[in-house]
């Protein structure tokens, strides 16, 4: 048996030796991870729904009536060059009338007789890559010669931006608190484990064990607790999400909100859990061992 495999085995034996403490610590880590997972899922769903909303937003730049085809081509080029513009679509007067007809589907009588009056201006529909640059892009478009008016739905855009900001800040805050709590809990468990192994540690130090030799089994113990908790939490959260997705997404209970398919987020959750599990386990053990590392 190599030294490393011996130390891993010792770490695993420690888990068994501290049986009930190990289980209660893992339960608490699982609970923390589940709460964190719920927040990750909420955030991902909010972000995805916000993203869909964002993509639907854009601005409409109206073109002066006397613009020639060359003018239109020039304006289109100018708009394309503005940073942050993802897509541009030209809507001529006929298309504008069709669009109006679509909007007044049930009250088409409003539009009766307007067809020949040439009152619907041609325009560009401009989409952005980043909604937060909307204000700036609007200002740039307004400067272009031949554009006489730019409209966009400022309220919706502002709401979309603030929803995603609040959600992100909230998750970061909750995440940080949960992380600190988890590290605190695991470091306490390891502290108890170290305490119950203090005879071994004392002997090891007298025999001439290096610090890393003393510490490794506890790090392994913490890491195993973290990883196992991560996997248990992942299984639980996967089952719950898939069930909710199947039962709620097809109903109208959620309004315009739609759950995103689990296939698009499972790896993020698993990855976050494993990284977090390892981090909590290893960091939690390290801080509780510090005082035992004096020579």
């Amino acid at each position, binding site marked *: 048996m190599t030294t490393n495999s011996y130390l891993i085995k010792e770490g695993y034996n420690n888990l068994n030796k501290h049986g009930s403490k190990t289980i209660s610590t893992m339960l608490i880590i699982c609970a923390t991870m589940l709460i964190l997972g719920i927040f990750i899922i909420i955030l991902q769903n909010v972000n995805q729904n916000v993203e869909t909303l964002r993509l639907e937003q854009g601005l409409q730049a109206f073109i002066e009536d006397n613009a020639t085809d060359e003018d239109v081509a020039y304006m289109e080029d100018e708009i394309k060059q503005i940073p942050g513009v993802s897509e541009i679509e030209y809507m001529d007067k006929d298309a504008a009338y069709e669009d109006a007809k679509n909007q007044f589907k049930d009250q088409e009588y409003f539009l009766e007789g307007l067809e020949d009056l040439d009152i619907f201006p041609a325009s560009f529909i401009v989409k952005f890559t980043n909604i937060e640059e909307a204000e700036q892009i609007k200002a740039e478009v307004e400067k272009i010669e031949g554009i006489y008016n730019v409209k966009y739905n400022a309220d919706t855009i502002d709401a979309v931006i603030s929803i995603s900001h609040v959600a992100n800040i909230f998750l970061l805050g909750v995440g940080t608190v949960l992380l600190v709590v988890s590290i605190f809990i695991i470091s306490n468990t390891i502290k108890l484990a170290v305490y119950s192994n203090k005879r071994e540690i004392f*002997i*090891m130090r*007298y*025999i*001439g*064990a290096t*610090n890393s030799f003393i510490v490794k089994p506890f790090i392994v113990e913490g890491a195993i607790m973290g990883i196992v908790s991560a996997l248990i939490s992942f299984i639980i959260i996967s089952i719950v999400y898939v069930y909710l997705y199947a039962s709620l997404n097809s109903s109208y209970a959620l309004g315009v909100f739609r759950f995103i398919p689990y296939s698009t987020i499972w790896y993020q959750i698993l990855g976050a859990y494993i990284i977090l599990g390892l981090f909590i386990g290893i960091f939690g053990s390290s801080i509780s061992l510090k005082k035992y590392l004096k*020579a």
Partner: protein
Amino acid sequence: MIEFINVTKKYDHGVCALDNVSLRIEKGEFAFLVGPSGSGKSTFLKLMIKEEEPSSGKILIDGKDITRIKKKDIPFLRRKIGFVFQDFRLLYDRTVSENIVFALRVIEASEKEIRTQLKTVLQMVGLSGKENYYPNQLSGGEQQRVALARALATKPPILIADEPTGNLDPKTAEEIFKTLLEINARGTTILVVTHAKDIVNELNKRVIALDHGKVIKDDARGVY
């Protein structure tokens, strides 16, 4: 092998545990360190394994000034010095052989070394055949032999025993000393802290007496 040069150890609370102590123990020597409680014996041992730092002076182990070695090298200093305690300090949830192998794991010995050393030290302390016993199944004397075997497993050139027979009856104590003499005969330098007056007087070995932190007697063939 072990040399203290003008070593003084004052604790923060003002107690002077060792006061300008200078002495030298040669390679292969067997010496007793005696003195009343509080005379500085424990501090002397702690300084040797760098569990404590001297306030002034030099301590040479195997020719090397250990007051100047780096923290990361302390484990390697300790591997040169086997330590036996009055209360054995065994791991009671492990068998005799597991207790001994534990020490060999700590110094990262190979599997082959572990096997041969285990056999050798069990024989040396007279515990062959008891390797699968748990410490609680053994007598006090046998437990101290396990502790001795553990200390010797890593082949340290120096062995320190702090009151090794303090918890044992006189007959068992005698047997332990007999084993210590055999170990010494194989070349290991041995320093024993003890109150076992009769045995010290009987063995006729070097006796260093400490009192109030000073060496008050150092006889090559002394008595308690």
